């Protein structure tokens, strides 16, 4: 009872032909998380196509994004595992210490500090500062150099559909890409999520982050400072040399006024909050502003769709956790898919996607709640709250066990950590 040639005619042959050029993954979005996943997945033997509406050169331009990232140790390890870290290590500034303090204009920092010293965790520095202008081109260069990955730039995705056994992404030029799974890495207003019928929830904080780099007279010694001001936090994050990345969150009306004003006006407004502990400051490059909101997809998965990065959860940048969360998505999804491939499972099946959803769900919920609570608690001038948070920070500082726990959490070293985030292949 062997299959006869008649049984193997058109439909089956077509399916086989289709399977030949069918991709495992089509990633929508060529920012940071999309390329990181493409590299990790290709290294695990998956066939990957990545699409972005912008040309790669425009994305790689130094003026594209003025931010710097506070990379958790786990994120640094993932970048090492996918072969990127060696290209950016020279531009990265190790964070040796984090000092968080409660500040009020004119009063300076509160005497009760949260003082985290990397010497207390055996893993070394618990993070690195890295500017977008170095990380983004490094990822895009590696992507272009990997001949296992098909890259489509200037490709507008206008639709997606799920057919039996696969999904399809439709492009504006009439082409379509067939894959087992569509990954949405297309940011806070993810079209992939919207087309999959995944709703979002979130809110505006009424704050805008002003971002720039400054030169300062005295060395920062690798110390990151977070001042909690009534209108929003001010982060002073060390960059290589006598430079620091500033993330200054202000009420939107005030921030817009500062953003529109000239550099001198901006600096004179910044100086009182900044203080003089790093000596005289001056601007090092352009200024950017980003309105702050929290937006979470109601689910990270749908039928043959998975979301990563800001498409899954765009969090308040208060703890620098946006990219770190995105890379946790990358490490988790890459491992789930690599494991599924090595077993011969359908990587876009509900069973496989459920493993990704379940693995990320606790982390996502905890993070959204924590950053939101943190921000609401600290962006407040209520004297009782102020006393409470001072005591809370002092308690963390005073108890070494609690402090180490806090640091390991911030470094992404707790919980069930995916292999890539431990620096191993997926």
């Amino acid at each position: 009872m062997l299959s006869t040639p008649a049984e193997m005619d058109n439909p089956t042959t077509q399916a086989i032909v289709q399977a030949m050029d069918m991709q495992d993954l089509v990633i929508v979005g060529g920012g940071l998380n999309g390329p990181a996943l493409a590299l990790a997945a290709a290294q695990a033997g998956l066939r990957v196509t990545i699409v972005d509406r912008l040309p790669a050169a425009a994305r790689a331009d130094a003026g594209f994004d003025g931010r710097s990232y506070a990379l958790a140790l786990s994120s640094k390890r993932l970048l090492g595992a996918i072969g990127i870290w060696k290209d950016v290590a020279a531009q990265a500034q190790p964070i040796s210490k984090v000092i968080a303090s409660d500040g009020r204009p004119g009063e300076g920092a509160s005497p009760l500090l949260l003082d985290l010293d990397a010497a207390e965790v055996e893993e070394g520095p618990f993070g690195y500062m890295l500017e977008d202008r170095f990380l983004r081109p490094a990822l895009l260069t590696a992507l272009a150099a990997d001949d296992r990955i098909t890259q489509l730039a200037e490709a507008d995705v206008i639709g997606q559909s799920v057919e039996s056994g696969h999904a399809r992404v439709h492009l504006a030029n009439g082409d379509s890409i067939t894959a087992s799974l569509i990954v949405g890495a297309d940011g806070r207003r993810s079209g992939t999520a919207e087309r999959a019928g995944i709703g979002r929830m979130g809110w505006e904080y009424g704050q805008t982050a002003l971002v720039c780099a400054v030169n300062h007279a005295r060395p920062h010694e690798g110390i990151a400072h977070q001042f909690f001001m009534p209108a929003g936090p001010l982060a002073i994050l060390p960059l290589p040399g006598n430079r620091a990345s500033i993330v200054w969150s202000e009420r939107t009306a005030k921030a817009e006024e500062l953003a529109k004003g000239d550099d001198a006006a901006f600096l004179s407004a910044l100086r009182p909050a900044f203080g003089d502990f790093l000596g005289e400051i001056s601007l090092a490059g352009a200024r950017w502003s980003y309105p702050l909101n929290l937006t979470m997809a109601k689910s990270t998965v749908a039928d043959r769709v998975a979301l990563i990065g800001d498409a899954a959860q765009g969090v308040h940048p208060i703890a620098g956790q946006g990219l770190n969360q995105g890379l946790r998505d990358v490490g988790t999804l890459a491992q789930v898919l690599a494991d599924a491939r090595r077993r011969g499972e359908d990587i876009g099946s509900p069973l496989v996607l459920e493993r990704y959803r379940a693995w990320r769900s606790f982390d996502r919920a905890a993070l959204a709640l924590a950053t939101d609570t943190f921000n609401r608690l600290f962006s407040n001038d209520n004297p009782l709250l102020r006393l409470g948070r001072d005591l809370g920070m002092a308690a963390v500082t005073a108890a070494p066990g609690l402090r180490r726990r806090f640091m390991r959490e911030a470094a992404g070293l707790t919980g069930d950590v995916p292999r890539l985030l431990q620096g191993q292949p997926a």
Partner: protein
Amino acid sequence: MSETVNTVDPAEVAKFEAMAAEWWDPTGKFKPLHMLNPTRLDYIRDQIAAEFDRDMNAPAPFAGLRLLDIGCGGGLLSEPMTRLGATVVGVDAAARNIPVAQAHARQSGLEIDYRHTTAEAMAADGEQFDVVLNMEVVEHVADPAAYLRACHDLLRPGGLMVCSTLNRNPKSYAVAIIGAEHVMRWLPKGTHEWSKFITPDELYALLEGAGLDPVDRKGMVFNPLLWSWRLSDRDLSVNYVTTSLKPEG
């Protein structure tokens, strides 16, 4: 080879026919099998890769291997093995499973030869395979010794068989019959007959009696807190899986 002993118990076949359409619903009646499947696949994959020296990072690591999946059901093992490159024949004694499995393979774009037949009939036809998967079947057949002799005949010399089943002891009665069928209702009542369960030592004796060399055994252990399965070197008290080889020449 003219005499075919039919060891299929008709009552068992009827039970599974009623369940066939549910095979591919991960939250349906076969949820426990879908939960167990990754652990079974990991074990099968590792045993085949080690025995036939395959690199799992290669595009189709099992290419060139002819594999028989006995009791293929909806194709939960046949499809992954095909994706890994094996040439798969899936057989099931329940006729209704075959169109279900065929329809799903077509949807998945996979070429799999599904047949409504038995291991004994295949052996009588002189079919031979590099790998035989014999998963959760032996506890359902009427004559395990005759059935395993047929499995032996279906292997090429040097071929490998993975065989899993349920241990017979008070714990397996509590877990597999009372727990899975009556309390959790994962499986319809009467799915299993505890008296047909086989201890690992009994299975080893049966495999050796059939002319095979048992080379490995592992427990498959359910963790009700993590809601997941894992392989265990020591705990073979309920579900367990074995590998045996057919001697060369």
